[in-house]
C-alpha cells in the first residue's frame, strides 16, 4: 500500500521539533528511525500524520556515563547500543537485547527512544529498562521532566508521554560490581518479536525480573522477584505464572506463553548460577 502522510518537516533542534509538534493541530508525529512508524504508514494503519523528523538532531544521540548513571540519547541506534563498550560494561542487558531485535538493516536505523516511545509490548528494550529501573527523560512545551520507568508504559503502544512531548533520553543506574543481567527469549524465527521474553537482573539488593510479550505492557514480576530473593525458584515460577495474564494470538496461546515464562525464569536462574560458579 501507499503511505498517506499529512506532511513532513525536519527538525533542527529539540526546540524546533517541539514547535513543529505544537503547531500541528494534534496531527504531529515524531519520526525517529522509522522502523515502526513507516511500516505502520505503509499498511495505512496510520494516515495523515504530519511527520516531524528528529533524526538529524545530534544532541539526542549518544551514550555517556555521568557519575553512577548511564545516559543513552533517544536517537541512539540499536546497532550502536549493541556495540558500545560503555553499554557492555554498565548495562550488558541492553547489549544482549540488541542481538534479539529484528535484523541488521533495522538495527542500523531503529532508535532506542523510538522503541521505548512506540511501547510494543513484545519489544525488548521496554522490558530491559523496566528490569534495570531506568528513568525516562522527556521534553515538552513547558520544559523537561523525568518519568520513572514503572510509570512510563501504560498500554499497548501507549506511554506516559504527552502528544506534544519528545523523549530525549534515558538514564540507568550503572551495574554494580558483581551484578548480573540476563535476557532469555523464545521467538519463532531469529529477529522475530519474542513469543515471551524475560529480563533478570541480580543486584545486592535483590532480583529484578521483567517480562515482555505477556500482556499489554512489560511486566515487573514482583512476586517472582520476592520468591527468588527468598531463594525459592519453584515458588518464583508459580508466582510468575500467577502474575502474568498473557494474550493468545496466532503464534501462541496464553497457556503456552505462561508455561514459557516459567521455563525462561528457570533458564535465566540457571545461567546466574552457572556464571557465578
Amino acid at each position, binding site marked *: *500500500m*501507499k503511505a498517506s502522510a499529512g506532511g513532513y518537516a525536519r527538525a533542527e533542534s529539540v526546540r524546533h521539533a517541539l514547535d513543529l509538534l505544537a503547531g500541528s493541530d494534534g496531527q504531529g508525529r515524531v519520526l525517529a528511525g522509522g522502523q515502526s512508524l513507516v511500516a505502520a504508514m505503509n499498511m*495505512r494503519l496510520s494516515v495523515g500524520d504530519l511527520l516531524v523528523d528528529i533524526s538529524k538532531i545530534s544532541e539526542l544521540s549518544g551514550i555517556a556515563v555521568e557519575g553512577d548513571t548511564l545516559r543513552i540519547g533517544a536517537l541512539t541506534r540499536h546497532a550502536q547500543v549493541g556495540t558500545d563498550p560503555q553499554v557492555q560494561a554498565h548495562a550488558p542487558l541492553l547489549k544482549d537485547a540488541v542481538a534479539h531485535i529484528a535484523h541488521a538493516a533495522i538495527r542500523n536505523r531503529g532508535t532506542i527512544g523510538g522503541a521505548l516511545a512506540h511501547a510494543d509490548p513484545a519489544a525488548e528494550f521496554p522490558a530491559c529498562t523496566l528490569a534495570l529501573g531506568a528513568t525516562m527523560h522527556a521534553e515538552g512545551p513547558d520544559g523537561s521532566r523525568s518519568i520513572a520507568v514503572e510509570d512510563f508504559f501504560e498500554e499497548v503502544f501507549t506511554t506516559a508521554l504527552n502528544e506534544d512531548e519528545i523523549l530525549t533520553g534515558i538514564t540507568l543506574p550503572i551495574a554494580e560490581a558483581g551484578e548480573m543481567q540476563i535476557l532469555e527469549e523464545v521467538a*519463532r*524465527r*531469529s529477529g522475530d518479536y519474542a*513469543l515471551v521474553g524475560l529480563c533478570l537482573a541480580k543486584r545486592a539488593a535483590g532480583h529484578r525480573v521483567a517480562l515482555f510479550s505477556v500482556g499489554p505492557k512489560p511486566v515487573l514480576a514482583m512476586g517472582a522477584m520476592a520468591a527468588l530473593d527468598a531463594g525459592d525458584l519453584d515458588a518464583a515460577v508459580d508466582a510468575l505464572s500467577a502474575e502474568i495474564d498473557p494474550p493468545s494470538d496466532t503464534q501462541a496461546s496464553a497457556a*503456552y506463553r505462561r508455561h514459557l515464562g516459567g521455563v525462561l525464569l528457570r533458564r535465566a536462574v540457571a545461567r546466574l548460577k552457572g556464571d557465578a560458579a
Partner: protein
Amino acid sequence: MTIPFNNPDRPNSYIGKTVPRPNAAKLVQGRGRYVDDIVLPRMLHVAFSRSTVAHAKIGTIDLEEAKAVKGVVRIFTGADLAEVCSPWVAVLAHLKGLKSPPQHPLAVDRACWVGEPVVAVVATTRAAAEEAASMVIVDFEELPAVTDTMTALDKDAPVIHPDLGDNLAFRRLHEAGDVDAAFETAHKVVSASFRTARHTGVTLEPRSILVDWNPAEGQMTAYHATQAPHMMQTVFAKHLDIPESRVRVICGDVGGSYGIKVHVYPDEVATAAMAKVMGRPIKFIADRLESYTTDIHARDHEIEAKIAVDADGKILAMDVDDWTGIGPYSVYPRTSAIEGNQVVNLCGGPYDFANYRAQTSVVFQNKTPTCQYRAVGHPIAVAITEGLVDMAAAAIGMDPVEIRRRNMYADDAYPATSPANMKFESLSHHASMDKLTEMMDYDALRADQTEARKQGKYRGIGIASFIELTNPSPFMYGIGGARISAQDGCTVRMDPDGSVVALSGVTEQGQGTEAMLSQVVAEGVGVDPSNVRVITGDTQVTPYGGGTWASRGAGIGGEAALQAARALRASILEVAAAMLQADAGRLDIRDGQVVDMDSGEERMPLAELGRIVYFRGDTLPKDLPRELVQTRHFITMEYPFAFTNGVQASYLEVDTDTGVVTLLKHWCVEDCGRVINPQLVDEQIRGGIVQGLGGALYEEIHYDEDGQLLNGSMADYLVPMAAEMPDMQVGHVETPTKESELGAKGAGEAGTAGAPAAVMNAINDALRPLGAQVTEMPFTPERILRALGKLQD
C-alpha cells in the same frame, strides 16, 4: 547422431555442466524488467475495494466519496464488468462430478470470501486509487459463512451456492485390491490423523499485470507476470470476446511464481476488461497485504489414514480419507480438485503393495480459493505415507530405513503400475536410499542421537521417500477440455554472425529456464552458450507452449530445444558441406566452427557461413536448402507423467521445554533423470526443501470462525528464513527417461514434496521415547508441547 551424454569429454559438452545463467548479471544489476518497471503513455492504475466479510449479499454501493478523490478516472462495479466480460466456470471433464459456480471478475450479487474484489477504482496513481478504494462504501448484508471443512457437508451447514445443491465440489474414491480383508488379517494396523495447514506462495514479486488495448489494431497486449502466457491468451480472448490471435501476452522477468501465477485471478481479468473499456493501459500490482487474501492458498487438508503391515514389515494395505476446503470457487482453468486428486494418486507411491483405498472430499467454504501450489498434493501424500510407514516401523520395532527397503519397488521392477494406477517408467528408490544413507552416514547419526539423549537432548532422524509427478501429458488438463498445452515448442535460428537465437514456449520465472535452454541449444548446435540468446514469454513471438508448471520446463521444453537445435545443426552442415564440397556426415560444429568430424580440424567459422548464406547466397547452388531456422515441438506419448523419485532425511533437535525445533541438517537424493545443469537442479531442490520446511514448521494461514483471515502480513504469516535453515546436502541418481533424447524429468518440486514428512518423522523420532507424536502441521512449539502434555489451559 545421438549425443554420447556419458562422455563428459565429448565436444560441446554443455549438457550436464553448470553454466552461468544468462540473465543473472541483468537481474543482480537491477536491469531486469518486471511488469511494474513498465510505464506506458496514458497509463492508469487500479486498486480494488474488497469484501471485508466472508459471505454477504452485496447491497447498495456508495461511490460518491470515492469519485471525489483527486486523480480518480473511473470506478467499476461487478455489474459494470459483467457486461463486458463473460463469467468462467472451473471444471474439467475428466474430474467427474466436479462442480463450481460461474465466477465474475468483480463480485456481482454476493461476496464469498474476505478479499474478493467488489469494486475497482481506476486512477492516475496507485496512491489515489487506493485512497478512493478505501472510501468506497459497500453495504454488505452478511450471510452465514462456511469455514470448517469437516462440517461443510453437514445437513445444517449453509449451502454457499444454492444452485449447486450442496457444498461438495468434488469427491473421488479409488479402490484397488481387497482393502478390508487385508486390514482384518494384518499383523499390525496403525492409524493416524494428519493435518496440513493452509499456505500461500509468497512470491518475491507480487502478482502483476499491465494491459493495453489498442482499438486501432483491435489488439490487446497484456504484460503479465505469469507462468502460462499462452493459456492466459486464450482466457482473455474468450472472456473479453477478442479473437485469440489479437491477444498478445508478454511475460518478461518474473520474480518467482511457485504455482501462484498459473491461475486466473478475477482482479487481473478485471484489469484487462477495464483497459478494453477505457482504451487506456491499466496496471495492477498486488500489494503484499492483498496478496494474502487473494493469491491462491493451498494444502488445507485433514486426513484420517491407516496402514496394515505383516510381521516382516511388508505393507499390506493403505486406507486414506482426505478432506480439503477450497474456498467458494474452483479456480479457473486448472480447477481446485487437482490437489485432492493428487493425494489419491500419490499416497503409497514408492511402495509395492496391492490393497489401496483413498478418497478425497473437496468442499466449498468461505475462504480464499485454493489451487495448485508447488508440489501440488505431494507434501500431503508424502506426509501421510511416510508418517504411517514410520509409525508402522515403530510398532513392529523395525528401523525406518529397513522397512522402506522391504517395501520400495525394486530398481529392476519397471515398468510398474502402482495400486493408485500411476505408471512408472523407471525409478531408483533403492539406489537413492543407498546413496542417502551413505551421504548422511546413517549409523553414525544414530550413534550421535543416542549419545545426545544421554545428555538429555532429544534429537531425531526422519526419512521420507517420495515420487514426484513431472513432464505431464495432456492427461493432466487437456483431456478435461482445458486449453492448457502439454506440448511445447522451440525455434532456433542462426543469424549472420554465427550466433544463435532460441525462442521457447516455456517460461522463465527466476528458476533458470533460460540457462537450461541456452546450454541445451549450445550443445545441440555446437556453439558456446554465451552465443545463444534465449527469448521466452511472448505469445506473438515464441512457438506455442504450456509455460511453467508441473516441473515440465527442462523435460518438455528442453527436449523441443534439443531437437530444434539438432535440426539447425543439420541445416548448417548441409550448407557447409556444399560450400566445402565435403560430406555433411563427416563434418561437425564445435565452438562455433565447422570442423572435420574425425580430426577436429577447423574448416569454417559459422560467421563465414552466415555471411555467405545471408549476403552472398548467389554463390550457393540454386536448389540448396538454406533454412537456418528450425522449429521442433515435443510431447510425451508413452506415459501420462514422467515420475521421478527420491528420498530426504532430516536431523533435528527438539527442545522439550519450549517445543522449539532446531534443524541440524537436511539431505536429499533425487532422480530427475538427466541432470542438465547440476547447480540449477541443486538450487531447485534446496529452494523446494526450504518451502517444504516452511510448511513443516512455520506456514499457516489462520482464519477465525467468521472467515476473517487473522495473519495476513509478513509479520504474522511466517515464512522460512535463512537463519533457521539447515545445511542441505543434495545428491543425484540419474535414470533418464527414454521418452526423449535428452532424458530429463522434472526437478522443481521434489524438495517441497519430501521435506515436511522428513521433518515430521524426525520430530516424532525425537519424541518417541517420551511417548509423544505430532501430525498436525506446522509443528509449532506449542503443538509440540501439547503433544508432550506440558500445557495446562
